[in-house]
């Protein structure tokens, strides 16, 4: 009789457990590392055809229909096709080589938004502050001053010098938009293909570095909010051309959010805040999609003949001008 009671209780308890588990929110059942953190690991790409800002043709239209999306993609792929020549134009030189060397993407974002920017709602970068405008204008003027003839490596931007490609946050570029996320207790690491940098994000609640220490990729601190990795990055540097994101100051604050949606997708968003540059913060949303392939090494400085060639060309052009 006693045993019968215990069996009934156990069965009831088990049934109750099943009912309770079933009512636990979906996020607690998503993929986890062996030590219990949400699992973001894998090889990912943020490549997309969707532009950062909403093009004028889509003003007031935050998303496309399926049909419009496919037509738009076809048009963008055609526009991006580097095999299409415009001989004798500057653009033909800067497009540089055949389409086989490029990988600008095949698709717009899956939710068919017309801009990666989701806030402000018009899909445009907010207006710059007067100081930001002055700074941007000064940067353009400084570049224009030397034009195609830089005096020294430091005239060129961090991209051409193979220091970083690019400042954070990284948008998708013409190729190699690949990331490898590796996690261990206490850290999330993001190995970026360009330029072989590993962003190491502690998730143990430690404070940021002192403001006296600035880094090309800033200083990142992460925390988990439910299934979302929230990363705050500060301590940027403005010591070189292009070392900040779109003419921001070194005091910009970047907040990124990573959430694993399914086996093939990370929902990635970032918000940039810099009251000395933009009149308000702005937010971008773009998926990171699983890559069926591997990370490759992208050594840059080691093979950067182009930098020496550019400087040599500048000196040759000056010499030719003097001899005229």
């Amino acid at each position, binding site marked *: 009789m006693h045993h019968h*009671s*215990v069996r*009934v*209780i*156990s069965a*009831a*308890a088990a049934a*109750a*457990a099943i009912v*309770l*588990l079933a009512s*636990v929110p979906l996020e*607690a059942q998503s993929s986890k590392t*062996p*030590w*219990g*953190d949400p*699992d973001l*690991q894998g090889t990912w790409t943020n490549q997309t055809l969707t532009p950062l800002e909403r093009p004028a043709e889509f003003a007031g239209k935050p998303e496309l229909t399926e049909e419009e999306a496919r037509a738009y993609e076809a048009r963008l792929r055609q526009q991006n096709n580097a095999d299409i020549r415009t001989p004798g134009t500057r653009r033909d030189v800067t497009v540089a080589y055949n389409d086989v060397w490029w990988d600008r993407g095949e698709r717009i974002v899956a939710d068919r938004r017309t801009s990666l920017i989701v806030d402000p709602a018009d899909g445009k970068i907010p207006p710059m502050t007067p100081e930001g405008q002055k700074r941007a204008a000064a940067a353009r003027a400084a570049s224009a001053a030397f034009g195609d003839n830089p*005096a*020294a*490596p*430091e005239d060129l931007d961090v991209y051409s*010098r*193979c*220091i*970083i490609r690019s400042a954070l946050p990284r948008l998708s570029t013409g190729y190699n938009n690949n990331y*490898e996320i*590796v*996690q*261990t*207790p*206490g*850290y999330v*690491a993001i*190995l970026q293909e360009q*330029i*072989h*940098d*590993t962003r*190491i994000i*502690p*998730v*143990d609640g*430690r404070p940021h570095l002192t403001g006296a*220490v600035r*880094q*090309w*990729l800033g200083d990142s601190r992460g925390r*988990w909010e439910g299934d979302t990795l929230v990363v705050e990055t500060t301590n940027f540097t403005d010591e070189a051309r292009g070392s900040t994101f779109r003419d921001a100051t070194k005091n910009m604050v970047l907040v990124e959010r990573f959430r694993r949606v399914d086996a093939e997708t990370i929902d990635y968003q970032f918000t940039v805040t810099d009251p000395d540059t933009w009149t308000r913060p702005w937010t971008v949303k773009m998926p990171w999609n699983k890559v069926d392939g*591997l990370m*490759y*090494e992208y*050594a840059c*400085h*080691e093979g950067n003949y182009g930098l*020496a060639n550019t*400087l*040599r060309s500048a*000196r040759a052009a000056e010499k030719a001008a003097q001899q005229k």
Partner: protein
Amino acid sequence: MQMRTAGLSIALSTVVLAIAVGAAAPRAQAPGAASRLQGKPNLSGIWQAITEANWDIRPHQARPGPPQFGALFAEPAGLGVVDGGEVPYQPWAAAKQKENFAKRWELDPEAKCFMPGVPRATYMPFPFQIIQGTNKIVIAYAFASASRLIHMDKVDDSPAENWMGWSRGRWDGDTLVVDVTSLIDQTWFDRAGNFHSEALHVIERYTPAGPNQIQYEATIEDPKVFTRPWKMTMALHRRQERNAQLLEFQCVPFSEEMMYGHLRKRAN
């Protein structure tokens, strides 16, 4: 009847409590808190070798640096990290190493901030961080922001030679064994001009020796340059300062004057 109801309530409460505790368990763990991961040692952390190997992997006495800097860049003596003390060069290669040594301040790829390759990256006088994931291990080196991805899962061969090679790892008991191939031939083993060819094959062994030390071994095979395989051995020490962090040593800008200074515009 009373007892059954009470028992059911207790069982139910236990289940609810168990779920609640599970859901509220802290997600982030302090670094190094997990000394084992998936049944293996957790090698994660910030490590650094304390040796004179980057100046010369062989036993050597103290030497002057470039004279204009006095003692600042002079080189300390070292017991060497090469098992047996000698690097077994083929005769032509021994001569080449001496040529390299004679012009080392000009030729050493470290001066240009080129990625140091394997195993030199391990014993540069800079820290590196191991992040041990579930099927990949990243090693991020402060020097030149060099990085390596060690594939613990099966992957194809590398399509090219790489400055930091192509690394495949596996466990041999508590030792992480990393097989490194596809290494570019332009790195040196040290500042003394010890070198290799594109046939270089390195087998690393990382064995924990206590919570804050790893015993590191690198076996070097290169039939184009050496008469036989040989080995380097050293200890790696955990960086233990509070909130230890790998800071950038982005030396590309530091190398530009040396590399491109002759192409700088001169004032007329």
